[in-house]
């Protein structure tokens, strides 16, 4: 590979051709601060609009300073990252950003996680040179069930715009207005709820400041826990345990299942259950539905719609309801694990525990913002009472634990309560891209072939590639599988299906990069793909060590069908565990 030699701050650096000054400096141990720059290598997306001008450096001989993030190294180049001129310019630029930024850091939801705050701290800014009562660009606040927009805090890095348009292809956010009043907003400055937003929350995950934040339900949960008349049960999604530790200083990829369970119990939840149980239940319903469709298809039934699409991801559900209203009968009708859990908890479980529906509060801990929206959908309520009352994120759980004065690190590991805490490795891998379809395959294989599956690890279905395809041998019959994560890749796959390019039997789609482990409610990883990989490995490792790894072998699931539901796709199942989809004409 052709290499280039240059000098940065008197240090010699040799880098491959095409390397930017920012990357080269990093390699040389020089951390040039940046703000709008965002690299998402796992999505092959480098966002470098070169617009914040925080990373400007001096190249002697050039007329102007250049942005390190968007300037390629050249042979023999001399770069000064901390000349007086560069420092003064960078400082002035950050001061300008601060001059148009609310100074409520102490109570900002992003305090401590804010890149602008970090810049101010690093550069030791103690006063902002600007005229008294300098104008601030302020905008209407916008609240939705899942995320809040306070664009007064927008620094126009446009990362959210890139994520929303390039990665997710949702198109809810783009820059509007000009000059000082420029801001990122839905078209015509609509409210998010009226826009095509799917509440995937990826914009929140990349927002460097407090402009885009998640809706905070922690106080609702605290109040419910404090209410003696309420029986509060909690469920935790598979991806939460792989990331929660990061909020308490554990290295990424540390599984904290036992400590998390102990913490929840310590917080006062009456029952600590697991969404993984509901994931196994989902496999029973969705897997049966898949088998049913495939069998009928193979028997020559032309009315069968294939491929079957997974429906666990609420952002994905919102996405196809908005963008593919003609394909509403293609996805599986199975509810997501969160909603299956809520429906079973407030019927079967409530009955078993002798708790009235209205006295039971179901809290779910999710890596996701769209789950906050999902649990408010009308079809998941009975007489106005939702199956799941509050969905909180991994980050909110960390806050709850801190509010509860719990020293997380010293907690002794505990196990989930039964019956709804019993789960298999199959339920656990729902948290990563390809996991749902792998779990379904483990079960469908045995049901379809009637043989025992010896090798349960389907490595061909795993990985971080955006779109993956595989054919699985079901004892002579090949089942074609497609997997996509991010909604942009989902769109590619769907458009391909519309055009008849693919011939899949089943497709798994997750809205977030890497699946739920990269959800908008997870500890912020700022595009660090190593973090995502570590979380993914942690989930597969935990699956590997599980005694039971196939959903249909979960003893509590078998018991649930025996005692309550009958069999998959029974009438009761349909009522409690399945749903239907609506096109969103308003969008």
């Amino acid at each position, binding site marked *: 590979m052709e290499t280039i030699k240059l000098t940065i701050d008197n240090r010699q650096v040799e880098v491959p051709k095409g390397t930017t000054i920012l990357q080269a400096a990093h390699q040389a141990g020089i951390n040039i601060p940046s703000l709008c720059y965002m690299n998402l290598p796992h999505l092959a997306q480098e966002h470098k*609009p070169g617009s914040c001008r925080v990373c400007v450096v001096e190249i002697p001989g050039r007329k*102007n300073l250049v942005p390190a993030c968007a300037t*390629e190294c050249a042979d023999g180049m001399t770069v000064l990252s901390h000349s007086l001129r560069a420092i003064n310019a960078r400082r002035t*630029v950050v001061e300008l*950003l601060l001059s*148009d930024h609310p100074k409520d850091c102490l109570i900002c939801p992003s305090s401590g996680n804010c890149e602008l705050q970090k810049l101010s701290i690093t550069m030791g800014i103690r006063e902002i040179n600007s*005229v008294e009562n*300098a104008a601030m660009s302020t905008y209407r606040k916008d609240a939705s069930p899942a995320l809040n927009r306070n664009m007064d805090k927008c620094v126009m890095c446009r990362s959210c715009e890139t994520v929303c348009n390039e990665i997710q292809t949702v198109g809810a956010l783009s820059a509007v207005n000009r*000059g000082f009043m420029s801001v990122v907003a839905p078209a015509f400055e609509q409210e998010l709820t009226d826009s095509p937003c799917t509440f995937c929350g990826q914009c929140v995950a990349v927002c460097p400041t407090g402009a885009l934040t998640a809706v905070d339900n922690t106080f609702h949960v605290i109040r419910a826990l404090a209410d003696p008349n309420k029986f509060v049960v909690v469920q935790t999604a598979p991806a939460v345990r792989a990331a929660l530790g990061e909020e308490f200083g554990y290295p990424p990829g540390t599984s904290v299942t036992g400590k998390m369970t102990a913490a929840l119990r310590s917080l006062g939840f009456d029952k600590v259950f697991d969404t993984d149980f509901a994931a196994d239940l989902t496999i029973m319903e969705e897997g049966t539905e898949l088998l049913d469709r495939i069998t009928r298809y193979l028997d020559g039934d032309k009315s069968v719609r294939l491929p079957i699409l997974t429906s666990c991801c609420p952002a994905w559900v919102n996405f196809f309801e908005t963008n593919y209203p003609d394909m509403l009968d293609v996805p599986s009708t199975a509810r997501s694990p969160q909603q299956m859990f809520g429906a079973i908890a407030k019927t079967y479980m409530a009955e078993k525990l002798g708790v009235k529906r209205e006295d039971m509060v179901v809290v779910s801990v999710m890596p996701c913002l769209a789950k906050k929206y999902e649990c408010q959908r009308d079809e998941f309520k009975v007489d106005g009472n939702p199956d799941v009352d509050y969905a909180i994120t991994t980050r909110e759980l960390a806050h709850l634990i801190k509010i509860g004065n719990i020293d997380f690190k010293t907690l002794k590991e505990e196990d989930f309560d039964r019956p709804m805490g019993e789960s298999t490795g199959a339920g656990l891998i729902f948290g990563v891209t390809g996991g749902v379809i792998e779990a379904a395959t483990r079960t469908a294989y045995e049901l379809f072939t009637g043989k025992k599956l010896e090798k349960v690890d389907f490595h061909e279905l795993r990985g971080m590639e955006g779109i993956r395809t595989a054919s699985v041998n079901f004892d002579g019959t090949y089942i074609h599988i497609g997997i996509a994560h991010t909604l942009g890749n989902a769109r590619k796959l769907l458009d391909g299906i519309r055009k008849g390019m693919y011939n899949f039997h089943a497709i798994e789609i997750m809205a977030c990069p890497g699946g739920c482990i990269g959800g908008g409610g997870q500890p912020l990883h700022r595009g660090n793909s190593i973090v995502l990989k570590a979380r993914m490995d942690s989930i597969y490792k935990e699956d590997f060590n599980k005694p039971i790894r196939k959903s249909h072998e979960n003893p509590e699931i078998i018991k649930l069908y025996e005692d309550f539901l009958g069999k998959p796709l029974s009438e009761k199942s349909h009522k409690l565990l399945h749903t239907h989809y609506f096109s969103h004409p308003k969008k």
Partner: protein
Amino acid sequence: MQLLVCGGTGCRASASATIVEKLNESLKAHQLTEEAQVVTTGCFGFCEKGPIVKVIPDNTFYTQVKPEDAEEIVAEHILKGRKVSRLLYENPENQEHIADSRHMGFYQKQMRIALRNCGVIDPENIDEYIGRDGYSALAQVVTDLTPEQAIAMVKQSGLRGRGGAGFPTGLKWEITSKFSSDQKYVVCNADEGDPGAFMDRSILEGDPNSIIEAMAICGYCIGATKGLVYIRAEYPLAIKRLEIAIAQAREYGLLGDNIFGSKFSFDMELRYGAGAFVCGEETALIASMEGKRGEPRVKPPFPAESGYMQKPTNVNNVETFANVPVIFLKGPEWYSSIGTEKSKGTKVFALAGKINNVGLIEVPMGITLREIIYEIGGGIKNGKKFKAVQTGGPSGGCLTEAHLDTPIDFDSLVAAGSMMGSGGMIVMDEDDCMVSIAKFYLEFIVEESCGKCTPCRIGNKRMLEILEKITQGKGNMEDLDHLRNLAYVIKDTSLCGLGQSSPNPVLSTLENFYDEYVAHVKDKRCFAKKCKALARYTIDPDVCTGCTICARNCPVEAITGEKREPHFIHQEICIHCGVCYQKCKFNAINVE
């Protein structure tokens, strides 16, 4: 015979009206009223040597004529046919008297190349363009020259982009030609946005075919078959005439397949802009043409590599294109013989402001500001004193008396702290407050910033706030330091040319008129009396009659005084509203 007497403001100020009277009297006295008439004309643009009397048909040009010379002109020239040599124009180089105005250097000051057909041909008739050698350059290029040869000629001519930055046109074409692609584009930037500049509109309205021809030549050179004109929707007449010209050129086969029987095909379309100033920047223009938000992006890659629809694209401005056919018609050597060492050819300027002959002028590069302002522009209006000239549009700088004799070209203007820009030239006189002028331009920039990069989005707003503070008399010396720092940082760090040049009005006025800033800040005074908040109202006790009308109308009771006694304004109470000044019937109130 006719005696033309200049009736422009400058000559009128030096008694040209009396000269008309005296000439008429003399004609009457010599009984020559049948043979000769006196006619008042518009400004000759030669105010330095005014008043001017011109005798036709022999084109005799008398300068600095006094009323008492009238009799001699009539008696000698009209009656006896002998020219009055002492009044003839003297060639400054060899002190020879020049009688014929056509041989006077002044009338060669302006040279129309880009505007060669404006005002000469009917722009809606392609035949008239062809009649003036139109499309011969294209014919020559596609039939006789290889693209490399044609590019070499453009390079040799020394033509530089007229849009502002002055990038060598031939080099730009060569770079674009080197990138291979299935499709390339020629784009004409007709998004003229500088307030007061309208040379591109004039060319499109007066000579649309020259642009079509030049774009086709460019297409041949760089290997593009498609041309796009990005034109402001606010230019309906230019759009109409361009559309007519395109249709006529298609009918003649001058656009379309196999032009002049060659293998070269070329056609073009219009794209409309909505008038954003920033869309004059080529990457923003391309984004706008693609239907995206009109904002610039980081270069490289340059449009030559990845432009419209990610294809190699050559963007030139209207005036640049208008020069291209001439290079081929007259030869690059001829073209490069005009102008200065590094800036060849002519430049069109839109002359405006406090100047007598507001208008479009085209002058060879290297002309001085003095020549433009005093000779072509006819001097400052109402005989006022020249203060500054602002070149380069809203983001150019203000040049002063000290720069009047600098030969102007791309590089000298930049060196002087301004720029060529698209050719706006606004002249200011002693009544203009330079702080207010800087504020005015900054208001435009703040309005037109796209908002993409921090320094331009927030920095310009902050600079404007400081200037507002200063013009309101609330500024302090720290504000000036802060203003200067902001200006330097914005210039140094902005993403595109708009932001990088936006502090120019502030920097150049800080540089050249620092005293005025200090007067605003320290003494709370505006010499030009433009900043209302700084106006100081006083009552002249010798003139005041004590009528009390000012005191009765003052909204803050800042005026006191006994009836029929001189009144007094208490400065510490006065809010500078100016009501007393308006109400006083005796002109007793002074404003400083």
